[in-house]
């Protein structure tokens, strides 16, 4: 009966899992793992304001065919859900034109200087003469023949043609969508819909931030699939061909699954926002517990009727204490991984130690051929000194990569496309968030920015401040337009204009529009929106130089790269601080377990880490994943150090470690073949680390 206990435990855990499945909440918001609460909040606001939801399509060439393509594509795109607006020309939309028409008198600058009869006559005469002398046909504006109103419009005030242009590449279509890069399902649908249309045209390129989500996830999926296959093959080789014990493999896999399910249940029930990435990492670290099993198996612990193997116990305690300390680190990703590791390793320790002896696992039969005699020639103090030298070398040459984007799959094609679009003048402005306690105050703030940086693009480009609007209204009310019109009409006839041609002149200025604007929705096609959160109003402004306006307290920079590099720097500091504590604790615990062999045992941690670090700093900048993986190396090193120091049967311990190294390689090392930088970094560190451990086994005496 007891020999089925392993299955039984898995079954119970699975049932509990199913029972509590509604309480298991996994967060997929990767931002919350890295970014501070404040930064996450800002990015959320930016998301609500439509930041990074723009799709850009460029049509190569400036010929007639390209223009016709622009029009056709724009029309076809209209049928897609999730597309909010399409802009291919700089001609304002009908609604915006109506807005200008309706509000023209307060939007335009009004020259309210008193016009004498003589001045009016002269102006009208010039207008008349121009009809005969102008080389270009110029229509007469009968509403404002004296040109007293002047409207500077940022949209029209550009030297582009009617169509938006992407430098010397071709025409540009700007599409605003409601899909951000973090919405995988929506992104996939929109990506498919857009490509269904665009694939029918030649010489078209398009880019949107969510393209990365779709294309990268596809690549990552392919990558992970192949790594899982490779990993499974290696595990099968170890267990079936080398250890020749399929039953052991089956039980090991069941035990690992049980530990992981147990850890998932505990972690997700205790943590409010346990992240899916922490889960993935935590599960990988759980695989380290195979060490315990292999040590037991090769020392025939399951047949010896001994309750506890001291070495494995010390290994387990030291590893747990190390991860236990990391549980307190203020980096959510690392503290979650560490917590998961502690729970999962503890559970598998219990299974391997107390349940496995009852599973009737076959005894390990020693074979002399397997273990070759090694020549141990290097004393441990030499390795220790070498490790210190390697550490010093590393600290002198280390460069930290604080660009978290570098960890992602490097989609060269998309990066090239993104560059094509971002180097364009129209897209070179940097978005910032502007906030205020009311909409009117928000517009005032935007006008302040506009004054400091006239190239700023925001609502201020279209909407005057309330004060300015009221002032204009006042000017208009005070001006005697009836007198002006009467003189104009009188003079016009005497000059030669058709009678009554100017009978409606300046009537538009008598009916002043309201200054309580609520026309913000009109400008959504330009990427401008207002978002209200509680009592605060937010909008975006696009500026040419963030530094020039940084003294304004109402702006926030949403440059993700900057936000993350600042965060990454803080993370490195925290990581260093906690690593020092962990190393000190590990030293103390190792000393308790191995006593005078401390130097020998500690080398199993120091040498792999120092060698790996030294090689890494010689070729590349160190990223967060490298550092996380070095922590995994500590976990592995602790166990091997203790086993090797306190071994009663060296050949068997070495064999256990060799298989354990192979298992570790199967779990992490295969990641070296991944094209995703984050995974590849883990793979490199673990592969280098286990190689270093292998060297130690062979040469350290």
């Amino acid at each position, binding site marked *: 009966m007891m020999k089925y206990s392993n299955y039984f435990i898995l079954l119970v855990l699975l049932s509990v899992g199913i029972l509590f499945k509604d309480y298991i909440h996994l967060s997929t918001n990767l931002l919350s793992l890295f970014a501070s609460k404040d930064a996450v909040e800002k990015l959320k606001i930016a998301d609500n304001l439509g930041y990074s939801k723009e799709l850009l399509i460029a049509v190569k060439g400036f010929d007639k065919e390209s223009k*016709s393509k622009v029009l056709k594509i724009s029309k076809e795109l209209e049928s897609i859900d999730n597309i909010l607006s399409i802009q291919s020309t700089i001609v304002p939309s009908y609604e915006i034109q109506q807005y200008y*028409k309706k509000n023209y008198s307060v939007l335009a600058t009004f020259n309210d200087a008193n016009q004498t009869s003589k001045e009016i006559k002269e102006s009208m005469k010039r207008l008349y003469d121009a009809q005969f002398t102008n080389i270009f*046909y110029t229509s007469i504006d*009968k509403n404002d023949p004296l040109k007293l109103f002047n409207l500077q419009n940022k949209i029209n005030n*550009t030297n582009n043609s009617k169509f938006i242009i992407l430098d010397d590449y071709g025409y540009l279509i700007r599409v605003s969508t409601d899909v951000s890069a973090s919405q995988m399902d929506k992104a996939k649908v929109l990506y498919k819909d857009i490509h269904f249309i665009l694939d029918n045209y030649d010489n078209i390129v398009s880019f949107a931030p969510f393209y990365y989500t779709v294309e990268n996830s596809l690549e990552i999926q392919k990558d992970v699939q192949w790594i899982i296959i490779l990993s499974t093959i290696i595990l099968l080789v170890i267990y079936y061909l080398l250890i020749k014990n399929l039953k052991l493999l089956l039980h090991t896999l069941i035990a690992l699954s049980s530990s992981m399910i147990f850890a998932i249940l505990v972690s997700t029930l205790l943590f409010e926002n346990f992240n899916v990435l922490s889960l993935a990492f935590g599960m990988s670290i759980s695989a380290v517990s195979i060490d315990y099993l292999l040590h037991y198996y090769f020392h025939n612990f399951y047949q010896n009727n001994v309750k506890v193997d001291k070495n494995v116990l010390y290994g387990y305690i030291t590893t747990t204490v190390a991860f236990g300390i990391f549980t307190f680190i203020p980096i959510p990703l690392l503290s979650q991984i560490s917590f998961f590791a502690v729970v999962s390793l503890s559970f598998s320790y219990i299974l391997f130690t107390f349940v496995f002896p009852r599973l009737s696992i076959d005894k390990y039969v020693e074979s002399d051929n397997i273990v070759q005699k090694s020549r141990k020639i290097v004393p441990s103090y030499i390795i220790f000194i070498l490790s210190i030298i390697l550490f010093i070398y590393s600290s002198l040459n280390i460069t930290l990569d604080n660009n978290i984007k570098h960890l992602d799959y490097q989609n060269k094609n998309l990066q090239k496309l993104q560059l094509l679009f971002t180097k364009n003048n129209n897209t070179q402005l940097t978005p910032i968030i502007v906030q205020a306690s009311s909409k009117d105050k928000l517009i005032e703030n935007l006008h302040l920015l506009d004054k400091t940086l006239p190239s700023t693009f925001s609502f201020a480009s279209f909407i005057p401040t309330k004060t300015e609007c009221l002032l204009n209204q006042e000017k208009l009310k005070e001006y005697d337009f009836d007198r002006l019109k009467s003189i104009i009409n009188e003079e016009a006839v005497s000059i030669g204009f058709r009678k009554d041609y100017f009978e409606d002149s300046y009537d538009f200025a008598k009916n002043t529009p309201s200054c309580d604007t609520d026309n913000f929705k009109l400008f959504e096609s330009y990427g401008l929106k207002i978002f209200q959160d509680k009592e605060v109003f937010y909008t975006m402004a696009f500026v040419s130089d963030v530094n020039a306006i940084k003294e304004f307290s109402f702006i926030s920079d949403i440059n993700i790269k900057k936000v993350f590099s600042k965060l990454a720097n803080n993370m490195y500091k925290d990581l260093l601080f906690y690593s020092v504590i962990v190393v000190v604790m590990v030293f103390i615990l190792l000393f308790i377990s191995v006593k005078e062999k401390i130097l020998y045992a500690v080398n199993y941690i120091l040498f792999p880490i120092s060698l790996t670090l030294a090689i890494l700093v010689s070729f590349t900048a160190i990223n967060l994943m490298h550092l996380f993986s070095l922590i995994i190396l500590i976990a592995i090193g602790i166990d091997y150090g203790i086993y090797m120091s306190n071994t009663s049967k060296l050949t068997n311990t070495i064999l256990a470690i060799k298989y354990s190294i192979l298992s570790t390689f199967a779990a992490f090392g295969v990641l070296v073949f991944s094209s995703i930088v984050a995974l590849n970094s883990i793979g490199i560190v673990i592969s280098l680390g286990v190689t270093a451990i292998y060297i130690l086994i062979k040469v350290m005496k």
Partner: protein
Amino acid sequence: MIKIITILFIYINVIFAHSFNFTELRYSYAIDRSIQLDGQINFLKNGLSISYHDSAKSLRYENNTLIYKENNETIDLDAMQYQKIKGYFDILILLYKDDKKAYDGIFDIEIKDDKTILKPLGDIKEYISHIEMFKEKTKLKQIKLFLKNRDNITIIINDEI
């Protein structure tokens, strides 16, 4: 808003050649008079150029860039005017090439004997009521532009240079 508006359909030529002499008749409703101008238009590979016989001013629109010159000196155009002229030149080139497919979405076409009537769609219908083109065999001889403000402009193609 409707300030300078328009300008230039003046320069319409059309015909399947590159350089033409033309006569332009502008009727201004405001003064109820017509003005006649004579000039020359050249259709380039990627644009066009226009000059008038009695003026030292000329316009050249090529590769999406517009240059306005007087006595060979470049004169700056205000942004609005620059944009309008470019927009209208685009239409002019479109008419010159007379590619029916390219009219799609810009004009509705109605053909009556030797007369083709183009009714604008989209933004330009704010300024232009309709355009009439007269052909002799396949060669376009005359274009009449009827503007919303009741002005009209007639371009008569005289000869190919």
